[in-house]
């Protein structure tokens, strides 16, 4: 298609640059995976780690045998599944009326909702709101405050707007009520955008950590990311691996950190190749907004 002088040389340069860039993007994850399967000496070896030269499953055994990580895993799965389903449901129910031109004062409602995207009370007032609502130390705090993402709901509203009123009119003539129209006509027509918003919400829930740090004290309600944070960032929980049985765990600090980290990251790495194109599509929907 496009031609010009020196284009073969340029392609070689370009491809080499991109290969290096791809290595920079991927290597850190490979490194952590290799460390997680390494013996203590291997984990401290200076240099590149593509695979463990001395394999040890000890770190993974310790991590997977830890009760706390499964509590975290359970809570993370809970918030990801329930949070995503509820979010999509409530955003649909909010976006549908806002998308109908005959809704009285539609612009006022939209403006009031959009306003929350650009102005908020701040961290501390929000904390006290959550506290006074009695949501501290409940699993509901993972779901309720972020139930409706304003941005996602606007995308959904724009998508619904493209569905012609005539479809709705004919359904009404056939005796369908509003809820039925939403669930049997509007939502089935919007599956691609619903899939994308669900993915966004799910990844957001899987990765979320700050709300758990802020609002949750109860160890039974922690999520995977707060557990991971205590092991790799603040280092508080690293010693507890050693405390109960032997001191072997102390030599395995690095592999244990890496295994905890990969345990949290792997689900995303595994689903990523299959879902990647939907994520990208979604960003286009978002950025080309109406």
């Amino acid at each position: 298609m496009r031609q010009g002088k020196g284009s073969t040389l340029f392609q070689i340069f370009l491809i080499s640059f991109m290969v290096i860039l791809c290595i920079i993007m991927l290597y850190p994850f490979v490194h952590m995976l290799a460390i997680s399967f390494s013996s203590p000496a291997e984990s401290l070896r200076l240099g590149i780690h593509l695979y463990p030269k001395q394999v040890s499953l000890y770190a993974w055994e310790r991590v997977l045998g830890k009760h706390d990580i499964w509590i975290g895993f359970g809570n993370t799965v809970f918030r990801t599944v329930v949070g995503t389903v509820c979010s999509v449901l409530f955003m649909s129910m909010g976006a549908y009326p806002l998308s109908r031109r005959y809704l009285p004062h539609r612009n006022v409602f939209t403006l009031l909702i959009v306003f929350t995207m650009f102005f908020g009370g701040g961290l501390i007032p929000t904390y006290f709101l959550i506290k006074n609502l009695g949501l501290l130390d409940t699993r509901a705090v993972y779901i309720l405050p972020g139930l409706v993402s304003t941005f996602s709901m606007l995308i959904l509203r724009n998508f619904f707007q493209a569905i012609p009123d005539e479809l709705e009119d004919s359904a009404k003539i056939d005796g369908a009520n509003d809820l039925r129209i939403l669930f049997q006509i509007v939502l089935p027509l919007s599956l691609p955008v619903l899939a994308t918003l669900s993915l966004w919400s799910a990844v957001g829930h899987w990765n979320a950590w700050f709300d758990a740090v802020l609002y949750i004290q109860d160890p039974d309600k922690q999520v995977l990311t707060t557990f991971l944070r205590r092991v790799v960032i603040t280092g508080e929980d690293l010693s507890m691996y050693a405390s109960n049985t032997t001191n072997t765990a102390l030599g395995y600090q690095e592999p244990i950190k890496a295994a905890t980290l990969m345990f949290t990251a792997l689900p995303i790495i595994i689903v990523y190749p299959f879902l990647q194109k939907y994520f990208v599509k979604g960003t286009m929907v978002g950025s080309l907004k109406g």
Partner: protein
Amino acid sequence: MDGIWGSPWVGLKHFKFLFLQSPDFFKILGNTVVISIYHIVFGFPAPIILALMINEIRSSKFKKVAQSLTYLPHFFSWVILGGILITLLSPSTGVVNYLITLVGLEPIYFLGDPHYFRFTLVTSAIWKEVGWGTIIYLAALTGVSPDLYEAAVMDGASRWKQTLKITLPSILPVIVLMLILRMGGILDAGFDQILNLYSPATYGVADILDTYVYRVGLQNFQFSLTTAVGLFKNVIAFMLVLFTNYISKKLGQDGLF
């Protein structure tokens, strides 16, 4: 906490303290703006350059692989990426410092040395977001008419000339819009990232408005003072959004609302 009706009215007490007496306020405001400007100066052009490069790749298969791999870090939280960075950047065992010593330089304590900390912040943020940031530019690039390139080739324009005279001007409106939107968020210097990477050694160069509110407000219970800091930030940020939206409309762009 007695709520809005039960609490005593203190007027502008906390704002006066912040602006006139507080030793910290202008320091953290400065940190916020400086880090944010670094992010814009180095982080904003990065995805544009990468998008132009990806656009030039001829093999469509390699193009897809390159895109998928560069998007990858975007999908992880700063807790995970922070853990990875702590391992990779360690001055004694980290692989980055291993490579640095191979070249014969002294190891650098990227996360603990205040001189390097902002550099680490900006570089790691680029690593995370550069690929994902290309999406919007690549979409804009597909809209450039192939006729323009054909005409340019007829006139004997080199590839570089074509990029400069056709490709860049074609996506300029998108670049301007993205830059304007980015300027609106200048008081957001990356709370998640900093909270997971900074330490008392680097508070001096990395403490931003958001981390100050969290640490001093919630952890040291200075609720009123830090609420004032948060309110200050949100009011300024809101005005910036209105302002940038206005500018974007003046320039003939869509704007946000």
